[in-house]
């Protein structure tokens, strides 16, 4: 029986600084042991506990797509301001070749079967875009693309410097099998793209709720204002999905920290539909 508390060794094979503040980096990790890699079967929306001995563990959403073979990617923000978070800070100091541990995959993925055959509206804000990126890349993969209807992506950040996955966004824009809308709250001299808050942009874009599912991740404030937009557009709460964040330790529903009512975000989440959240007590 595999001990769920013991991390598997992984090695950093690539580090990309996503934003000009260097506060957000994407780490590409490769398993040290093949069998671990085989055991690690995940889908977009799941997360894992990244472990650094001497510092601790930190739950991070998986930013890569299972369709990308041979590695995992995690986009990590250096947590804490005055008092930096131990794990994320240590991680940010790590470079190619360094090793750390990983436990997972944990939690439930975006409900792929449920999404199949539907039009997907992906809405993300800031660095909460990670598992959405995974989802988009998953859906765009040649084996999967046809399983889904129209795919549109709305992604926003406070300013151009804070947009993650810039290169990838570019390549998405080139494609004709999805429509991408990247926006920033406030542009700079070089910025030629859209300006405006995500909710507003969504309102203007007004995607049809016809056979459509909205998948939304972002800072609370963004969620708060985006939801009504989609409700207004006629999306049913079952068809609006999001991913919750809560303080976690074990990641397997034992330590009793991340529950919302009877549901553990780590085990029964992090993915929830608005309808499910409505049934849960307001405890998050």
């Amino acid at each position, binding site marked *: 029986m595999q001990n769920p508390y013991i991390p598997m060794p992984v090695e950093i094979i690539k580090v990309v600084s996503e934003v000009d503040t260097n506060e957000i980096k994407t780490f590409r990790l490769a398993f040290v042991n093949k069998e671990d890699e085989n055991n690690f079967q995940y889908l977009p929306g799941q997360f894992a506990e990244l472990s650094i001995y001497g510092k601790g563990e930190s739950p991070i959403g998986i930013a890569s797509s299972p369709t990308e073979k041979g590695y995992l990617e995690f986009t990590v923000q250096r947590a804490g301001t005055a*008092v*930096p*978070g*131990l794990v994320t800070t240590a991680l940010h100091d790590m470079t190619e070749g360094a090793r750390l541990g990983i436990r997972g995959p944990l939690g439930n993925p975006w409900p792929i079967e449920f999404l199949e055959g539907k039009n997907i509206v992906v809405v993300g804000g800031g660095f909460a875009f990670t598992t959405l990126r995974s989802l988009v890349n998953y859906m765009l993969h040649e084996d999967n693309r046809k399983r889904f209807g129209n795919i549109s992506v709305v992604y926003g950040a406070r300013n151009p410097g804070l947009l993650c996955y810039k290169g990838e966004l570019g390549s998405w824009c080139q494609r004709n099998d999805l429509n991408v809308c990247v926006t920033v709250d406030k542009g700079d001299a070089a910025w030629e793209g859209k300006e405006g808050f995500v909710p507003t942009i969504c309102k203007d874009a007004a995607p049809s709720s016809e056979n459509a599912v909205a998948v939304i991740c972002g800072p609370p404030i963004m969620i708060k204002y985006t939801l009504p937009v989609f409700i207004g557009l006629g999306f049913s709460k079952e068809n609006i999905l999001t991913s919750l964040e809560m303080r976690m330790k074990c990641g397997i529903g034992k330590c009793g920290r991340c529950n919302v009512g009877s549901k553990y975000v780590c085990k029964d989440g992090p993915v929830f539909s608005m309808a499910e959240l409505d049934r849960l007590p307001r405890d998050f």
Partner: protein
Amino acid sequence: MTAFKEIEKKLIQQAKELLERGEVAQVIAYGRGYDDQHPMPYVAKTVADADNLVFNEFCTFNLVGYLMRCPPGIKVAIVVKGADSRAVVQLIQEAKLRREDLVLLGIPASGMVDQKTGKIIDAQTTGGQINPVLCDYLLGEEKYGRTESPYQVLKPLEVMGKDDRWQFWQNELSRCLRCFACRKACPMCYCDPCFMDQSRPRWADKSPTAEGSIMYHLTRFYHLAGRCIDCGNCSRSCPVDIPLYLFHKKLAQDCEEMFGQAAGMRIEDKPVMVDFRVEDTDEMLK
């Protein structure tokens, strides 16, 4: 005990008046618990509530900590026994409470009984302060006449050899569960977050290691030096009965000797650890 019934009657009446006149928004006192031996802290917000107030020999819990939950500018009445009133004074010194927000219902409470042990609470386990040092209404007869020094109880430990004393504290502190009842029950432990909850630096292991517990308690003793008003709340709250009051008493005694000031006696005082006198000498380091 009729004396307590008397006090209880006065308390209820006083509370009613204050609430009726709208002088205070709430009265922090004691109410009935699951039985008479176990009264609970209770907040009366209406005249009707006031009827639920209780005062008897088991109303030992120092309520002053609850004042921290009251927003400034709203007048609150609270029951204070001797030590409790000192807590109020100390917290006023530390600008944590404002005198004008408080109506103090003083109770000169002697013959209080420890709920767990059934023993009378005296200068052994507390400062033995019976009469409130500060109050607006006195709900009972002040008691005078000499009481034994609260530091008497330290003698055995002081004469004890250092190794035995170390063993003594080992035995006591090693039982610590880190439930933090001591700090949560202490009216002076208002820090949020407590140094123990800091991640940078991690002053002590979060897990209940022996060394971590020692670090926690020694540092807490330090933080309370010259501030502890010896109400005994910490020790009575401890589920494993660690006699923390002994250490607090010792430091209280040292502070009095070295800095010539006892905690929570006068509003004008400045807490001794954030103060100094030009007359301070190196004697204290001997």
